[in-house]
């Protein structure tokens, strides 16, 4: 392994997304709580090992809370709305009689272990997928991801970056105007008037800023080479949107076993092809270059492949041994865990060891001691 492998740097954000989506797909294929918990453990370990000291990285905790809430809500709903599928009744609640028009809905009543477990497994699966998203958000710098967009989406990326930088400014000017409002004795008076007094100066401020930004962008060459004929734009737009729809249908069909098979792979591939053609035609017309683009180094491939690997292993085992991945709820028993899927899921932890640590945050002074290489 070359010495430069572990030099601190930020990994390509797309690599983290591929990895996280791979784990999410894997989580979608199983309800086995052991496997799902293993995936959660893998996610947490990698996030803690490889996240940078940045605001978005701190959001992982929020996703963890959200995941816990999801599990709680799923189980709670099973208890409240009809939890009697199965024979092992663990809780007897008085059933609340509902009027005739609400037939089919049951409120409270007997609660069976099977339905609570079903809710728990289901909730755990969803929670794991949410946690996967959280991991991707924590590990991939969202701004670098926008920069890594294909040239065809450059305008969208710029708009999003501008919008992101406008929000703190807007918050600041609301605060400032609100404070100034007090100086005019603004507390009294009707609500609407008070709102008016805050909104007008803030909007004026925002409008001024956007005009200044527009003139600055114009004089700095924005959109210099981006003049595309209307017909060409229509063509690329149609190609890309059709492609995206195709991909959506394909992905849905692939993940949901009950949809007809012909919707799965053919749609996915057709959508991808159309989308890529659209991207290329849009991209070739853009004469713009990119400063220090993120590149795919071996570490990125390792990360992405480990995620894909997890998904592939779970796909493969689900066709061989489905009961292991989806423990039976009709006969209560401890869910079993076999070696193959477990090892498959553990593949996902590789990035924690095989990727370089994140680059130092801007405040940190470079200190010689940071040169140690993780084992």
């Amino acid at each position, binding site marked *: 392994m070359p010495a430069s492998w572990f030099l601190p740097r930020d990994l390509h954000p797309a690599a983290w997304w591929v990895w996280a989506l791979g784990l999410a797909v894997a989580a979608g294929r199983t309800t086995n709580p052991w496997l799902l918990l293993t995936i959660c453990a893998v996610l947490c370990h990698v996030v803690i090992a490889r996240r940078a000291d940045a605001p978005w990285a701190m959001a992982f905790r929020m996703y963890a809370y959200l995941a816990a809430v999801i599990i709680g809500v799923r189980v709670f709903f099973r208890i409240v709305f009809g939890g009697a599928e199965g024979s092992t009744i663990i809780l007897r609640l008085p059933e609340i009689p509902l009027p005739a028009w609400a037939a089919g809905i049951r409120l409270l009543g007997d609660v069976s272990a099977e339905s609570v477990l079903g809710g728990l497994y289901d909730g755990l699966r969803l929670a794991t997928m949410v946690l996967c998203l959280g991991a991707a958000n924590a590990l991939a710098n969202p701004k670098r991801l926008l920069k890594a967009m294909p040239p065809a989406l450059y305008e969208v990326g710029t708009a999003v970056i501008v919008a992101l930088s406008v929000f703190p*400014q807007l918050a600041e000017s609301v605060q400032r105007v609100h*404070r100034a409002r007090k100086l005019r004795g603004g507390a*009294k008076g009707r609500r609407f008037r008070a709102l008016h007094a805050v909104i007008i100066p803030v909007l004026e401020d925002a409008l001024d800023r956007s005009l200044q*930004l527009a003139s600055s962008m*114009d*004089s*700095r060459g924005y959109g210099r080479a981006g003049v595309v004929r209307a017909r060409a734009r229509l063509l690329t737009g149609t190609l890309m949107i059709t492609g995206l729809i195709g991909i959506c249908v394909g992905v849905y069909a692939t993940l949901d076993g009950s949809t007809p098979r012909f919707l799965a792979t053919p749609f996915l591939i057709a959508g991808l092809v159309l989308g890529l053609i659209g991207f290329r035609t849009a991209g070739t017309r853009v004469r713009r270059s990119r*400063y220090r683009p993120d590149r795919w180094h071996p570490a990125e491939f390792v990360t992405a492949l480990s995620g894909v690997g997890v998904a592939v292993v779970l796909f493969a085992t689900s066709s061989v041994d489905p009961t292991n991945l989806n423990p039976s709820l009709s006969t209560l028993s401890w869910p079993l865990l076999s070696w193959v899927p477990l090892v498959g899921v553990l593949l996902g932890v590789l990035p924690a060891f095989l990727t370089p640590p994140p680059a130092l945050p*801007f405040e940190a002074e470079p200190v010689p001691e940071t040169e140690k290489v993780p084992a």
Partner: protein
Amino acid sequence: MIELDRVSFWYHGQPDPVLADVSLSIGEGELVLVAGRTGSGKSTLLGTFNGLVPHFTGGHLEGTVSVEGVTTRERPPREFAHLVGVVGQDPLAGFVTDVVEDELAYGMEQLGLAPQVMRRRVEETLDLLGIAELRRRPLRTLSGGQQQRVAVGSVLTMHPKVLVLDEPTSALDPIAAEEVLATLARLVQDLGTTVVLAEHRMERVIPFADRMLYVPGDGSVTDGTPAAVLRSTPIAPPIVRLGRLAGWEPLPMSVRDARRKAGPLRDSLMPVAAEPAVEPGEPALSSSSVVVRYGPVVAVRGIDLDLRPGEVVAMMGRNGSGKSSLLWALQGSGPRQGGKVRAGGVDPAELPSAQARKVVGLVPQTASDLLYLESVAAECAAADAESGAGPGSCRGLLDRLAPGIDGGKHPRDLSEGQRLALVLAVQLSASPSIMLLDEPTRGLDYTAKAALAGMIGGMAAEGRAVVVATHDVEFVATVAARVVVMAEGEIVTDGPTAEVLGGSPAFATQVTKILGPGWLTVDDVAAALPQAVR
């Protein structure tokens, strides 16, 4: 380099042209200072250089503007990005990305330069502007001077032939402004870039300007060397006014030039009796050990300050030294964690805000935050209602502060100075006995500053205590009797203006630098001149 051939410009629906039949040519490597009152057409003139006027602003342009032989008629401003670099007043509003390095590269990405070229130019520019250590910093966390230097860098990376700066220092404190101007001087000296620069505080630029364009506001443009143009302009820095007063020929452009000629003048001046200080009476406002903190950051560190009726106090100190926090705390609307404030027997912080403003008035840094209605008349009526004053009292105050403002005008259409007068009138309608002004001189030209000085004098004559937080030494010398200098949330100096400003090189006015301590303003000197010379 830049050629204007009989250029006229007017906005649709306006009878008078902003520019009328202007012809001029700016050569390679020149540093050109553009001066004129606010709203006189300086920005319009600068905007024509890369076609922002009229492509972006609208309006009608006649004649030809060409840069390096390319006319702005055929091409939009973006096609001039590699020829003309434009830097605006508020750097933050012009930033597209959010990190220094990306911002420097943005323009080059639009030009489609090769990655190696971009990398090299970014590194060169970081060094040239001395901002290498900021490269990964988010733009919002930089100081004003640093932001403006990044803004300059972000157009320099495109290697433009001309750099156009529209009042690049008007939103900055003096130290930050020095930083930016020093950078510009270096660019002119080292790279030979042509620089066209509009600037209010021209005394800072005149020493190294080759040429000056004065825009009086009637559509014409006066062109010449700074010494020639400044001989007759109605706006002039103190050094030039002193030169005119003393009849020096040629007019001095720097403190050094003036000092060498100042000997005879200094000897002929007769010392005047110092004005009697305000007699110490009952303070209008007294405060003791005021503490303001934001979490772990201490903004004001136990300050004692008394204000007497009829006294004008200037509050100085670098940005972040706690001036604003102290003013807000004294007014009662801002946070205050400790200490006592008494004004008229009450603590304004304990009153509801409508009552507090009848005791202490405050004009915040962005004065226009207080205005939200569609016309001057509506603002005045609202102010009367809010203050419980008789109808027409705010309008009366406004007419005394700045006569002749049309009541039907939108507050945004007023000049900076007029808007400030309107906000002052709104705040005065509550007739507070203490008036606090937070950086009112920001973005004002010489004329507007003189008008503001008049307003402040009037308020003090009515027996109000006035506090002005400002960086502007010359302004302080004209209005204030007492100066308080703050640093790190503490008061460093508190004394009569002549002592505080005369005693330190950092706060000395231009006249003090030329004639020595004891002389603060040109008006002082004029008063002390022997009758014969006057």
